[in-house]
């Protein structure tokens, strides 16, 4: 027999309130009595908190309670002035976010400049960007993508929620090269060309490359 919805809602509320970080539905389910309808409870809770001083939001597929955006002006004591990213870093981050997986060379090509080495490294260090894999193309360059910390920082539930991404995709602006004769094909990212690397054979080749590149 599954517990009543309002009971589960209370429990979810308490857990999210006490938690030091966003919790996934799975995290919650694990701590709740068997058969608890987590999704339902979350939806109910979200509705209950809508418009309040505290709200329930989904970031990086996890749930967290946070203060309402319009009350930011009150939070003078809690505000930590984050290290502001420079323009180059902000642009690079946007390019990685909207084009991932993307290589260093592609970032440079979009920005039209030979990037300052430090820009991407700064983002890596801040944990906003991570290495994802290797592109299946000559030289097998490393590709970059964003992290969960990125989503949490910007309050995004998932990459699909990147502002304007749908429109840009529809306009063909997210493909890396000029779309054929302006016939924009949404979703023509580089995903398909990323290397899943199943072949064992590549193992040895790779080290040779790595060594030889110096």
């Amino acid at each position, binding site marked *: 027999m599954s517990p009543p919805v309002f009971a589960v809602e209370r429990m979810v509320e308490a857990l999210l309130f006490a*938690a030091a970080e966003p919790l*996934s539905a799975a995290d919650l389910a694990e701590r709740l009595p068997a058969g608890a309808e987590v999704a339902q409870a979350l939806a109910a809770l979200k509705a209950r908190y809508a418009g309040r001083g505290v709200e329930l939001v989904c970031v990086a597929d996890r749930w967290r309670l946070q203060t309402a955006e319009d009350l930011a002006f009150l939070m003078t004591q*809690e*505000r930590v002035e984050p290290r502001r990213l420079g323009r180059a870093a902000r642009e690079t981050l946007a390019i990685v976010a909207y084009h991932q997986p993307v290589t260093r060379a592609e970032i440079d090509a979009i920005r039209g400049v030979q990037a300052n080495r430090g820009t991407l490294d700064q983002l890596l260090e801040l944990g906003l960007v991570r290495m994802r894999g290797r592109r299946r193309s000559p030289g097998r360059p490393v590709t970059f993508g964003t992290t969960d910390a990125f989503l949490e920082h910007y309050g*995004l539930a998932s990459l699909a929620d990147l502002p*304007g991404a749908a429109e840009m995709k529809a306009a063909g602006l997210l493909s890396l090269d000029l779309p054929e004769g302006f016939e924009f094909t949404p979703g023509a990212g580089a995903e398909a060309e990323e290397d899943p690397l199943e072949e064992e054979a590549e193992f040895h080749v790779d080290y040779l490359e790595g060594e030889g590149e110096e």
Partner: protein
Amino acid sequence: MSLAFQSALEFSAAADAGLDEALIVDLDGFEGPLDVLLALARAQKVDLLKLSVTRLAEQYLAFVREARRRRFALAADYLVMAAWLAYLKSRLLLPKPAAGGDGELTAEDEAGRLAFRIAKLDAMRRAAEALEARPILRRDVFPRGDPEAARIVSRRPFEGDLYELMSAYVAQRRRREERLYRPPSPVTLRLDEAREHLRELLPALTRWTALSGVAPARRAEGPSRASCLASTLAAGLELVREGALEARQLVAFEEVYLRGRKASGHKAAA
């Protein structure tokens, strides 16, 4: 390494002024030719994908001319872009060649490609702004100030990405390299080898012979000439003490001469 980020540009100001003072004065604020082209394109106030590339080319060329007139040292890529745009413009203005299809892009394709790149950079710049406008954690929205326990944590196995792994690896390797630094010790002619060599030569040393002539010649991978000389001298002095050899030097820092001692030398050698 210093991260000299360029200060944010006020694009709307530049756009309002059209292509004039604002752009020229701000040359240092631009991150390369594409950046300038974007600012110029924005001033056209049309859909960036439908932009007039010939007009853009003219504006850019005027910009570069003006910048040079003001004796800005223009980076090579600005000039390369200028040359390419001039060429593109001329191709756009010429009547189209009858047949394409030899693989070369038409001028229209090139123009479209440029417009696309500009539109793309524009999109990314807007995306960056849109991201900054999001409710940012601890700037606009705040988590619980006093979470009850670190006990309620999300079940992620642990944090750490490849970058961290690489950093960790390099950090300790670097420490180790520092700790283990050992300059290669020079190859030397061993003293017993030098002695052996001298003993072999002894019967032939009936006259005063320069040390440099006595010391073994340098072999390819062997000890340096200086080492050969030094070891031979040391071995020679030992033999002098044993009475098998005589040594003399006429002037300080000059050549040392060696000579076998007749009877005793042969006795010692035997």
